[in-house]
């Protein structure tokens, strides 16, 4: 943890330091002793620390205090005693989760849902960006962008509402032609269909928005390459294959690796809203399971639920750090 901390820290500082070094001279000459210099600089900058105080206090209360609360995974939480006062329980809850008959089904559901989403939703924005990038009619391009970005800003409740209403087996408009053709409606929230509904409604909501980053990368491709290739008689498909795709390869590799760092983070709110007793066997993921243990069982088992959350947080952290390390190695870039 510490070594990573330093690495992240350094890369962050060096980037922004470079960009600023030409116009901000160091406040003190290099000859002075570091410790005295630092103390003096801190005293001189006290007003900046005052400005930082509200966001720091916010982070401590609402981000770091809950992080400290993760130790509840090793304690038996007692409401009257609080986080600190509750008695230690060791690995009771962690091992309870490992030995739970739901352990493997929940892990499997989480991974299947996310791997499916990654495989389906990662390539499509690239295709969309390539198509939009080769458009010559700028107004048409603008219109396509404006419309396809829009669903990203619609709330999860509204998205799920649209699914429930339009895809309803009894009254949904989508099920009218389906009934007419196949003779029976399709229940899009059944156990068999849940994953497809989850992933493809996600496609509807995020494809346009996800293409932005690839469009930005494509804007950096030198137009002269295209001109030269055109003069040489290269078709548009060949130019896309030999010029555009190599141009966005670094971004693509980086994003793919970083997305793999998110394999345990399914869209908790959307899964929760789409969940029903019929699809629970495939829709129970780590987040919803932890939520259910804490808030929907007869006796709230906060410690057990925290243990499940901690398990997820630790694996996620490892995945993110691994992904970032890989991105650095393979694509020579990382986001932090």
């Amino acid at each position: 943890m510490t070594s990573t901390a330093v690495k992240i820290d350094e890369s962050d500082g060096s980037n922004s330091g470079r960009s600023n070094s030409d116009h901000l001279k160091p406040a003190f000459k290099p000859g002075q002793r570091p410790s005295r210099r630092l103390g003096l600089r801190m005293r001189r900058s006290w007003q900046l620390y005052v400005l930082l105080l509200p966001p720091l206090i916010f982070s401590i209360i609402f981000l770091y205090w809950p992080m400290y609360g993760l130790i509840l995974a090793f304690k038996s939480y007692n409401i009257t005693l609080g986080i600190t006062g509750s008695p230690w329980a060791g690995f009771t809850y962690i091992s309870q989760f490992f030995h739970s008959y739901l352990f493997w089904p929940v892990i499997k559901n989480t991974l299947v849902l996310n791997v499916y989403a990654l495989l389906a939703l990662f390539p499509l924005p690239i295709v969309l960006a390539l198509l939009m990038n080769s458009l010559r009619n700028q107004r048409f391009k603008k219109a396509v962008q404006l419309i396809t970005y829009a669903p990203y800003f619609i709330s999860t409740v509204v998205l799920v509402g649209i699914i429930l209403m339009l895809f309803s087996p009894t009254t949904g408009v989508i099920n009218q032609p389906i009934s007419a053709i196949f003779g029976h409606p399709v229940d899009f929230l059944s156990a068999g269909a849940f994953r497809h509904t989850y992933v493809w409604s996600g496609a509807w909501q995020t494809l346009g928005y996800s293409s932005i980053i690839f469009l930005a990368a494509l804007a950096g491709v030198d137009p002269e390459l295209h001109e030269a290739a055109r003069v040489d008689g290269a078709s548009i498909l060949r130019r896309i294959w030999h010029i555009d795709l190599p141009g966005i390869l670094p971004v693509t590799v980086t994003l793919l690796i970083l997305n793999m760092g998110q394999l345990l983070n399914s869209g908790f709110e959307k899964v929760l809203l789409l969940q029903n007793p019929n699809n629970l066997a495939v829709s129970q993921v780590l987040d919803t399971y932890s939520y259910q243990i804490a808030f929907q069982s007869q006796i709230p088992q906060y410690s057990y639920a925290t243990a499940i959350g901690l398990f997820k947080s630790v694996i996620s952290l490892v995945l993110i750090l691994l992904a970032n390390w890989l991105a650095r190695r393979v694509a020579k870039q990382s986001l932090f």
Partner: protein
Amino acid sequence: MRIRDTRGDRAYYVVNYSVLIVFTLMVLYPIIYVISASFSSAKAIADNNVYLWPVGPTLDAYKTIVQSPNLLIGFANSAVYTVGGALLGTALTVLAGYASSRDDLPFRRVITFFFLIPTLVSAGIVPTYIVVRELGLLNTRWAVILPGAMSVFNVIITRTFYQMNIPGEMLEAAKVDGADDFRFFFRIALPLSKPIIAVNLLFYGITQWNGWFNAFLYTSDQSLMPLQLVLRELLSQSAVNPAMIGGADVAEILKRQELFDKLKYAMIVVAMIPPLVAYPFVQKHFVKGALIGSLK
């Protein structure tokens, strides 16, 4: 000199335009359908006669919303949370973004990293819930706004804005003139950061307007429910629950079950429109947001 498209290139463009038009229509259709259905007559919906445009146009679903105290409270609550969350989130973000953009700030890297850690290690729902409870915030408006009030991604965008737009010479010149850090921030940096303030207000506003989970988890009072949560409750009912809607007349109207589906459509429209109207204003900042968002 223009080179003429070959036959193959023309075929490509035909396919390209077709794919994009079909995709755009697929994105648009559910939105148009929901709006049309909310304006159609209840009978047309029940008979499945609505496909694209409103059939037998009427406003009675919206009249029902306006007459229903509980739905109006949801609307008012969402407005409060949106404005409050936007102001608070923007204030925290601008303060953190500005101070951490100053590379003469001692321990700047440590502080930046302090803001970044929570994006790597998520505490999860249960510990956050326990903190909110130990703070005594359960069943208050603060519980809806405060957790998640500041997004680290916005802090990074804002920090980058200050690094690129407030040159060091400006700070040095102000210092020579005797301005301290407070004066420089409030008199010079803040007036120059209107664009990034607008972006933050819109981002946080949209997030709060779209939010339902905080209210769902931390409050149980109907009088604190935002619109999205009211909509969620409405969607989860298959039959009319007059208590949910409130108001004697409204209950009478809603006894006609067929109006119920229409009401759901109208509520979806009301919950959906504000972000759709607001987002084009932040569009040009998408690239930065998308870059940083992919880290999440």
